[in-house]
């Protein structure tokens, strides 16, 4: 339970060592934050391309149309497949996962548990720098046209270069990039688990950890167990490919390739493999991945809501146990992505049961959040608004998931826009709004300044309205039977009447996209010109708020001692204020036993 001895020298570090190849978890966290925010803009731009095509199919598309100037700005169908593939890929692998685990996990974990840095600082730095080969490979993928087999990358479309334009070198680059992201995540997860288990400050028992730490811990376990499967699947596909990166002759395995398939009038495949295998391996990782993309946000929102409502979190242990249950159940539900895939139908029953049960801990958490607000003293600022939006939209996302869990209904809505609505409500409506709340909340700790409140609210309002305008109608589109990944749905008679709705959604999406510029401006200008904050601008309880803003190398002036849990807001033990920090020593009440030690509520 001891913090590491300060093994590093306290001499002045060079610019490169301090800002570029830093091993300080705070700097690494901020590096992740900057990188992922840039990637967020890229992913958003790709999504706007998708939306444009759905609203005004085959019209001159802004920005991307320049690539097709000789066709009048009209994109081609394979370009569209690349747009949605890379949108999802960038958002999942380069934005949401790194921002939650890499940016916030890195920054907050040592601060919240009272450590001076991560257990393995150099490994931590490497986990950030492994993102850059990933970005480089994704860039190369774009250079060769961009992977275009969906972020799910199902073979044979993805594994045979003849099958789709993006399945040649682009797909190989994509696989290498995903491998790099996986390595980065695995490095991070090892670090987090070790740090959380071994480096908590004295008095910080497991059940005195903030829920953010619980969520990061559970997420790290998910990453550690699920990622190797994806990496392995990626290698299997690389070996299957005819040309390994275009330069070397292929290894020519057939893990996913059955015999005798002729694509693009090429030679028939030699085969013996099974495309379904990829789906199992891929979803074995990707389902826990969606919880990797959700749990940290859940943990952070819990902390923020408690602070903003000046109340303890309602049901701390049930919250922690629910997160563990979500993670545990998350490992046994992957088949619900495959109900129509041709796997043994009996598996449909087992996966359906476990999937339906995952709704339970999610529901428990939702009720507990509402319970946290209940009887509180709420202040409506940017942080609070985004957290309430998290809860509100998580309700929608969670409830829409129940439709899909019911297998017969899923037969109908699988691969329609209903699914798109569901996962955007949980990934964007919940997680990203949680991030939009977490950034202003911990910004003072990161940079010593506050973000602009007014801009934050305007950004929230526009994003919320734009988001719901874009994604709520997708539930209707799904029930109407509009399939996903269609460049021009309107050639189908039963979908023709849906164009006005799609146009409305695109306009909302554009408004939402432009609103993000407000956020970026707020973020950047506040770094330089925001009003200075003190150590604890929110009067919050966590250990991080007892450190200076921003914390120096080593985080705390002295080793913190933890006396209580993180949610003792409005505690009757103190007069005149409504928060009681974890590190604050209170003299014991007059007690017959003079030998009693500090408060101990394990």
């Amino acid at each position, binding site marked *: 339970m001891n913090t590491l001895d300060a093994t590093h020298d306290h001499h002045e570090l060079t610019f490169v060592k301090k800002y570029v190849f830093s091993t300080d978890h705070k700097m690494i966290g901020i590096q992740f934050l900057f990188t992922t925010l840039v990637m967020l803009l890229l992913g958003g731009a790709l999504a706007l391309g998708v939306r444009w095509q759905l609203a005004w199919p085959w019209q001159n598309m802004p920005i991307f149309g320049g690539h097709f100037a000789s066709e009048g700005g009209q994109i081609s169908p*394979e370009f569209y*497949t690349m747009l949605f593939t890379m949108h999802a890929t960038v958002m999942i692998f380069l934005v949401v996962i790194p921002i939650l685990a890499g940016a916030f996990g890195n920054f907050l974990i040592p601060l919240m548990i009272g450590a001076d840095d991560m257990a393995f600082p150099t490994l931590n730095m490497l986990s950030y720098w492994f993102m850059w080969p990933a970005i480089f490979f994704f860039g190369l993928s774009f250079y060769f046209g961009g992977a*275009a087999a969906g972020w*799910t990358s*199902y*073979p*044979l*479309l993805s594994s045979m270069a003849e*099958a*789709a334009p993006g399945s040649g070198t682009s797909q190989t680059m994509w696989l290498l990039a995903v491998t790099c992201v996986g390595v980065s995540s695995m490095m991070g997860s090892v670090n987090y688990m070790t740090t959380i288990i071994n480096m908590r400050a004295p008095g910080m028992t497991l059940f005195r950890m903030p829920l953010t730490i619980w969520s990061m811990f559970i997420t790290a376990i998910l990453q550690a167990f699920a990622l190797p499967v994806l990496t392995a699947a990626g290698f299997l596909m690389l070996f299957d490919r005819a040309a390994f990166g275009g330069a070397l002759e292929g290894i020519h395995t057939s893990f996913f390739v*059955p015999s005798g398939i002729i694509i693009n009038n090429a030679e028939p495949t030699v085969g013996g493999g099974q*495309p379904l295998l990829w789906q199992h391996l891929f979803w074995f990782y990707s389902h826990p991945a969606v919880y990797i993309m959700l749990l940290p946000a859940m943990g952070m929102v819990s902390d923020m809501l408690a602070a903003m409502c*000046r*109340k*303890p*979190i309602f049901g701390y242990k*049930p919250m922690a146990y629910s997160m563990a249950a979500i993670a545990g159940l998350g490992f046994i539900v992957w088949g619900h992505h495959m109900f*129509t895939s*041709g796997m043994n*139908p009996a598996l*449909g029953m087992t996966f*359906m*049961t476990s999937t339906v*049960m995952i709704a*339970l801990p999610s*529901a428990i958490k939702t*009720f507990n959040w*509402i319970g946290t*607000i*209940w*009887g*509180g003293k*709420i202040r409506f600022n940017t942080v609070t608004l985004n957290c*309430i939006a998290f*809860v*509100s939209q998580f*309700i929608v996302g969670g*409830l*829409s998931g*129940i*439709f899909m869990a019911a*297998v*017969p*209904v899923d*037969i*109908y809505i*699988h*691969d329609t826009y209903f699914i798109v609505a569901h996962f955007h409500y949980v990934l964007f409506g919940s997680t990203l709004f949680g991030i939009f709340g977490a950034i202003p909340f911990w910004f003072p700790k990161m940079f010593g300044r506050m973000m602009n409140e007014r801009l934050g609210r305007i950004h929230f309002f526009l994003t919320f309205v734009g988001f*719901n305008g874009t994604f709520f*109608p997708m539930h*209707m589109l799904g029930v109407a*039977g509009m*399939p996903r*990944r*269609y460049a*021009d749905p309107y050639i189908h008679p039963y979908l023709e*009447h849906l164009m006005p709705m799609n146009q409305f959604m695109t306009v909302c999406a554009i408004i939402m996209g432009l609103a993000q510029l407000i956020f970026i401006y707020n973020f950047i200008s506040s770094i330089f010109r925001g009003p200075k904050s003190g150590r604890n601008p929110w009067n919050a309880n966590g250990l991080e708020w007892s450190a200076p803003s921003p914390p120096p190398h080593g985080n705390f002036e002295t080793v913190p001692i933890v006396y209580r849990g993180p949610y003792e807001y*409005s505690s*009757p033990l103190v007069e005149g204020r*409504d928060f009681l920090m974890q590190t604050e020593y209170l003299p014991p009440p007059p007690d017959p036993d003079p030998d009693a030690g500090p408060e101990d509520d394990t």
Partner: protein
Amino acid sequence: MSRIFWCLFFTAWPIVAIVVCAITPAMDWGFPGNREAATPLGQRIDDLFYLILGIVTVAFIGTMAALSYVLIKASKNKDEKAWFSHGSHNLEVIWTIVPAGVLLFIALYQLDVWAIYRVRDYENRDADPRPLHLVAEVTARQFEWRIRYPAPGTRFTSYEQVKDWLAKPHAGDVYAVNRLLVPLNRETLIYLKSGDVQHSFFVPDLRVKQDAMPGQSIDIWFTVNRAGTFDLTCAELCGWGHYKMRGEVEALEVKELESRLRELKQLQDYDGFTPPGTAAASGEVTR
């Protein structure tokens, strides 16, 4: 002032959502054609959908109302401190047991539909002696549906025969593309194959969907109980032409189906020769 605004904001948006859902049928945003499914299983799927919709709506209204309520109360709270509560064991128990019960109910209730849809027949088919209404083999390929019907009048009496027919082309087979003819009010069996990558046979009006896996031949069965023409689309990304795979499933009375198939066969056997003195026959598919 702004507190009232935000409380109203978070109360108003669920109301808007519910209103939008309520007007969905009237605006023709819901199920295709705003009609029930054209198969009995599809109708059961619709029933299940509405059941879940009902439960989910209750949960939605309940939680959103609770959220609004606590927001309003919390925003008006003038006390020096908030309610110092770490939770309520009783509440936790209640809101664990009740949702668990509801979810378990949903899970068990729909097992039957799934069993009928896929599992029961899958397990029984080799032992099942009933005549099999194999209608067609549909091969999904980039980017069309290639259909092969057995010779008109063929009756299959065992799965062995079916497997034999599926294994290779037979004399008398009728070939078509993109338009699938199926019998009305009779159980239809389709074998789905893929010519190249993964596709998915999706007929929204029938609530039928099955992925076509390369290397596999997957059976789909359904009974259409409403005459008409239904859109067929592909529901698994298969390349740049994924959206182009526009097909049609036409449900006809059995007799009419047979005569249409015979007509197709005739067109397929057209040799271009017109005996002198007769009008030239058209060799084209006109319907």
